[in-house]
């Protein structure tokens, strides 16, 4: 019986050692993240128009004609004296449709307006646009203004140019 008891004891010890160790978890698990965006579309809503500018001053240079994103025209440093602005100026407008509440970066590089001569156009665009709560349905419209520099020697005529606007998710 003693021998039997010893055998039983040994068997019990073996069974104890053979028990698998418990799995160990970290105090804090890693997380996994993926950000999914719907396709982003951009479309033109309206063109930018400076209106009509009369070079009134006899001799001047570096007069900046600008229109803000909000559509406010600044007709040089001395409106009505050096430059006289008329017509219906308006900024360019674009519509973005994509993911609700996503923030989009806007790129609008400068370009040359061509006509009787060349005028360098400097855009005034928002760096980013948030698409808001209805970004996937109605989207959001944003405006781009800009500026040109005129002189009394600028050849008169109609100047036009084309924006190269792009947008991308942040």
């Amino acid at each position: 019986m003693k021998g039997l008891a010893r055998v039983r004891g040994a068997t019990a010890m073996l069974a104890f050692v053979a028990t698998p160790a418990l799995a160990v978890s970290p105090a804090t698990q890693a997380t996994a993240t993926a950000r999914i965006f719907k396709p982003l579309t951009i479309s033109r809503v309206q063109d930018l128009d400076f209106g009509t500018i009369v070079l009134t001053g006899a001799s001047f240079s570096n007069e900046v004609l600008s229109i803000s994103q909000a559509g406010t025209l600044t007709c040089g440093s001395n409106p009505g004296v050096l430059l006289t602005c008329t017509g219906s100026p308006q900024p360019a407008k674009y519509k973005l449709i994509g993911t609700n509440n996503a923030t989009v970066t806007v790129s609008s590089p400068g370009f040359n307006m061509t006509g009787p001569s060349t005028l360098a156009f400097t855009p005034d665009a928002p760096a980013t646009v948030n698409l808001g709560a209805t970004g996937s349905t109605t989207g959001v419209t944003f405006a781009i203004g800009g500026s040109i520099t005129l002189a009394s020697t600028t050849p008169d005529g109609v100047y036009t140019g084309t924006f190269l606007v792009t947008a991308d998710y942040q």
Partner: protein
Amino acid sequence: MLSLAGPGAAATITTQVTANNVKPLIIAKIQDLDLGSVVLGPGAWSNATVSISQAGVLNCANANLTCTGATAVAQYNVQGSKQQAVRISAPSVTLVNQNDSTKTLTLTTDAPTSIVLANSGFPGSNFSVGGSVTLNSTTAAGTYVGTFNVTVDY
């Protein structure tokens, strides 16, 4: 070893028992997994996969997907006994859309089945967990987040 004697004599039986003493395992998170940003292409399509390997290589080779942003694999550190093999369990992770909890994605994990600890105790050994998700044109936009349930044992 077994010793036997005649009738009336005490019988003795001995059995050798081997115990493998090991240090308790410790596991800690080092960093989270991030698949970056994925822009879904237009039109109707399905079964586009974006994945990140254990080595941290992003695979977004699908015409319907555009992947941007920084990416990262999950990483853990394990400490225990030197030269001991440690089994790793990393089940799939459910990623939940943070704007709509009814929308989920399943991250199929890519983890080593085991590693051998390079040293005893500190600093232990690191391992990475990658994974993949399958996207469709109907996948809801938003930020999807889930939590791993990684465990280790000897």
